[in-house]
């Protein structure tokens, strides 16, 4: 009897020790986060600023994570290659990204195969909703933008759209088509990274619209499009110009300031809490291109990913379970949750009007 009791006690002590050892070793082992950001190509300015924000935020964490940055170029193919490297070679615990929706949608089929979670801070294509539970985004859905934009221009019966052909912009265009229907009298698109949009602009002019929705992706294409529209300044100054996130950054409009004046933009909400302001001010350089909202979501994505990976180790749960079941923390996501969706719930669009060269929240 004594021997049995001794064996049971020893087993309990050993199990306890082993448990402590696992817990301690897990706590000691830093979380590895793979980050997909565009570090080359037209959207590289966004990626570089996001990299700076994440490195800064990482140093603020109680236990900094190991960050592995890979250039996803805002392209599906490059994102898949970068993802494979992060998973197979770097052995990361979770992915922060993709940055562009095309990247995020491209890596989605690989997430379940590799049993890994991706949390995007910026992707907004509505196609993300309903995808694998391994894919989450704390940016807002373009459905939110489409709803707000459509409500604002619904009074007009002559609406034209110019769209760049990539996942993010096409998804927004589709959402707008559903809402605006026959009010759209010209619906033009151009291939990704096109440089000459003049014939498309002529086609739009021939339709004589009252409202023109500009729907290019971030980067050089959006600057080219606005410059080429400005070549017909006398025509377009009588047309209401409407756009999305792309033209919120002041740099994107700086070459055609007269045309861009009074442009209406529907994008991420403005964050002006003291906490957000302090964080932005503490950054080593400005985030003029990425903007305050996405700097905050990038910071939140890292904070919540690291916490979820750590909690999943302690609680012996999965990372997605941690993300799905607990409210998030951070600057823009604080107290919000996914509620079983792929998009974080409770984010509303902001309406901006370009005034004196600045995008001013209404």
């Amino acid at each position, binding site marked *: 009897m004594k021997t049995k009791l001794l064996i049971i006690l020893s087993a309990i002590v050993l199990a306890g020790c082993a448990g402590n050892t696992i817990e301690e070793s897990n706590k000691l082992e830093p979380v590895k986060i793979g980050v997909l950001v565009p570090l*080359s*190509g037209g959207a590289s300015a966004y990626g570089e600023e996001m990299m700076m924000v994440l490195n800064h935020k990482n140093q603020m964490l109680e236990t900094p994570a190991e960050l592995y940055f890979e250039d996803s170029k805002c392209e599906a193919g490059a994102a898949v290659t970068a993802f494979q490297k992060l998973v197979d070679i770097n052995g990361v615990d979770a992915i922060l990204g993709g940055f562009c929706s095309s990247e995020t949608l491209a890596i989605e089929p690989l997430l379940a195969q590799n049993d890994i979670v991706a949390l995007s801070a910026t992707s907004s294509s509505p196609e993300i909703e309903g995808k694998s539970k391994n894919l989450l985004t704390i940016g807002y859905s373009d459905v939110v933008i489409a709803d707000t934009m459509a409500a604002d221009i619904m009074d007009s019966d002559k609406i034209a759209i110019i769209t760049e052909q990539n996942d993010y912009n096409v998804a927004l265009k589709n959402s707008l088509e559903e809402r605006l229907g026959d009010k759209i009298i010209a619906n033009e*698109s151009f*291939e990704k*990274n096109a440089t000459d949009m003049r014939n498309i602009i002529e*086609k739009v*002019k021939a339709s004589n619209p009252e409202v023109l929705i500009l729907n290019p992706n971030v980067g*050089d294409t959006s600057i080219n499009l606005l*410059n080429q529209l*400005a070549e017909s300044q006398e025509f377009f100054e009588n047309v209401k110009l409407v756009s999305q996130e792309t033209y919120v950054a002041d740099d994107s409009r700086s070459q055609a300031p007269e045309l861009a004046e009074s442009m209406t933009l529907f994008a991420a909400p403005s964050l002006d809490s003291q906490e957000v302001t302090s964080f932005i001010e503490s950054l080593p350089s400005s985030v003029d291109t990425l903007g305050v909202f996405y700097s905050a979501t990038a910071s939140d994505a890292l904070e919540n990913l690291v916490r979820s990976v750590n909690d999943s180790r302690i609680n012996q749960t999965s990372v997605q379970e941690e993300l799905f079941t607990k409210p998030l923390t951070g600057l823009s996501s604080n107290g919000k949750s996914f509620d079983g969706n792929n998009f974080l719930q409770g984010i509303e669009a902001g309406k901006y009007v370009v005034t004196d060269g600045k995008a001013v929240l209404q």
Partner: protein
Amino acid sequence: MEFFLQIIANSLVLGTQVLFLALSLYLIKAVSKIEHVALGAIATACGYGFYQGLLIGSNVMALLFSLVVAFTFGYLSFLLLEKFYKNKEPLLGLIVSLSMGLLIEAMIAIVFKSSSKSLIEGILPIVDVMGVKFTLPGVYTLAIGFVLALAAFVLVNKTPIGRTLRSVSENSSLVSSLGINQLKIRKSVYIISSVIAGIVGVLAAMNTSLTPNMGFNLTITAFIALFVGGSSDIKGTIVASFLLSLIPEFLINYAPSSFEFTNSYRMFFVFALALIILSFKPRGIFSKNIRQS
């Protein structure tokens, strides 16, 4: 009507850009039988040379830089491709030229990064001709292109220089026996062709923006124009350059909206046109049927 004329005007500028490269390809093909497809990348490199010159100094410096780039790559092309002409291996020459083009583009992307650069900041100056608007670089493109096409046509068809150019590749031993330095001719043609490509590189970049792979689509269209026009017929090359630019634009802009043809269809139409024309006229649009015995 204004819309129609504006589409023609814009397409003519695009067609002239293709023409520059097609003429460069034609000249090199005439003296060495090699399709030097790296000319598109050389055009891009000259554009970047101009950009670098602008960063360092003035317009004169920019012009000088782009000329140096054109001369260097022209001479380098000659050194690389000459032996394939001598060995009568034009296909290998094409592959080497393609590799050279890809290498130049990769080098540009590494040095200058892949984001686009503007040679003219802000909105381009506009020239209004009876309601039809041209950008200033577009006007330069059309004017230089017209002079170049005319000069090339007269030079090749109406002067002894043209006959010499053609005979260099057709009967090199006879040309040598006449005391003509064919090596010097080929070297000059490579350099002149690179300069012509360089001009379009700078003008196209001024009209839109500069990216490492901007020469690629132009080269593809110019390459097809060379064959659609008939690779030994300069008149055909000139006409094909414009046809392959104008017809796709009209199909995109005038097809019923139910077809939903977008700009992405441009290359599809270029290839479809080439396929149709070459099926009926394999030796080029102006070729005559030859009775075979």
